[in-house]
């Protein structure tokens, strides 16, 4: 049975980090589940680059052991609330992460 990110994460979310940057957090309830994903090749600059169709060097990923969490930050294609923007808070941009298979 393939394991999806949403099967092991307690929270996957996205939000603005200021009006120009989007940040996404993948949080786990314990070290074991966090380590499973951290030690896999699931969340890498190249996997995120494919999902969000964005150059690898524009993607920042941090593994935050004290919080059993992974952080991904990418530039916003449009600034928060501008004419072209459709997500003022940046709150629904994590959607494609939910069903990623942990591998």
């Amino acid at each position: 049975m393939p394991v999806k990110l949403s099967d092991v994460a307690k929270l996957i979310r996205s939000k603005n980090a200021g009006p120009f940057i989007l940040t996404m957090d993948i949080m786990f309830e314990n070290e074991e589940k966090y380590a499973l994903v951290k030690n896999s090749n699931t969340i890498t600059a190249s996997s995120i680059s494919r999902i969000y169709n964005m150059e690898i060097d524009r993607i920042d990923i941090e593994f935050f052991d004290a919080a059993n969490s992974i952080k991904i930050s990418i530039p916003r294609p449009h600034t928060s609330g501008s004419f072209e923007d459709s997500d003022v808070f940046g709150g629904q941009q994590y959607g494609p992460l939910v069903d990623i298979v942990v591998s």
Partner: protein
Amino acid sequence: METIKVMAASGQLGSGFSEESFNRGMSWEPDMIGCDSGSTDSGPFYLGSGKNHFPHDAIKRDLRLILLGARRNRIPAVIGSAGTGGSNEHLEIVVKILQEISTEENLHFRLGIIKSDIDKEYLKEMLDTGKTAPLPNAPSIDHNTIDDCSHIVGLAGVEPYIECLDNGCDVIIGGRSSDTSIYASLPLKKGFPPAIVWHAAKILECGAACVAQRQYPDCMFATIDQHGFSLEPPNMDYICTPVSVASHMLYENASAFKLIEPSGVLDTEQATYKAINSRSVRVEGSRFVPANQYSIKLEGARFAGHLSTILGGVRDPVIIGQLDSWLEGMEQKVRQRFVTIYGDDIQDKYRLLFRVYGKNAVMGELEPDQTTANEVGVVVEIVADSEEMVRTLASVAAHICVHYPVPEWSGLITGLAYPYSPAASYKGPLYEFTLNHVVYPESYQDIFKTEYHNI
């Protein structure tokens, strides 16, 4: 002083907190109370328009409790980023509420005000002399960008707050500031270590957001010493755990480990989070690296025109099967119709876009999945210089869109289900953020002006 105790009333002035939690926190004898009042979260409208997000009555309820508590215990009350946008216009809204409360409660105190508006000529000069720098993903800017802004503010660091405290202020209402400066002010003035103070301030700035399961906004309480700080929620239904406190570093920051302040960078990569008991946490081990150059982050918003929207639904599988080409044709037809009425001059006087809910409206070009649902919502958006113009264009567009044909059906079709009559809605003025830059002033006083009043 061996320890200093700081209470955050809430994450946002006007979002509320429990009076019971607040009173319990006050009984722990804090040395100051703080509350943040600003944000760019809810978009550019607030900074752009000069209006505040939380209603007058909600701000007044929170501010009254904070003021009464602070005056009763004779400790400073510090409010930052007043009125959402933190411009002088926003500051006035909160100062007026403060004056209403002071009159009603017969309070007397020394008030410090920090103004964060940036003078446009000053900023142009700084731009021309190379004393600005872009932050990640910043647009390019010139004099026109600056002139177009309805409001430009700088995010104050701790320095003007300390100036106010040095001048004996009992209450400080700051314009736009870094959220942390509010809480770092008194502890830094008293000489506590910057790394510990900034880290504690970062955790405090969202009030009870750092608890394990926040049900509603509430207070947070920190005790800072020379080696670290501890956190305990005054709300007895809440608990702080090492993970809940550490996790707060993730929230709304591009980095979980680095927090940039005007005077330096907080680095929490080596920090440790340990449980003291079942509901409080001890934090130690962060570092603060002083900046080589003092920098102030800018925020600016411009008026971008008046906005109208049209919402319509599609259920016909024949149309949905060719949705992209149908909408492309529709958009062309709308643009042609505008030219027919107004001539070629109209072409650079409006902006038009289509969003398709049920396909990729939420994520746009970031969307990897291009499947389309069995019904979709089409939102047509139009921006023009005046309300009258955008209302006219939207009404014209609504008529073109609703009857736009597909080749498979012969005869007049009605391809959009409009839930409203009239189909087009005037949404109001549109604002856009335009600055994501820092400026390098000689001193904070070049930008931030303090005023003192005896209330």
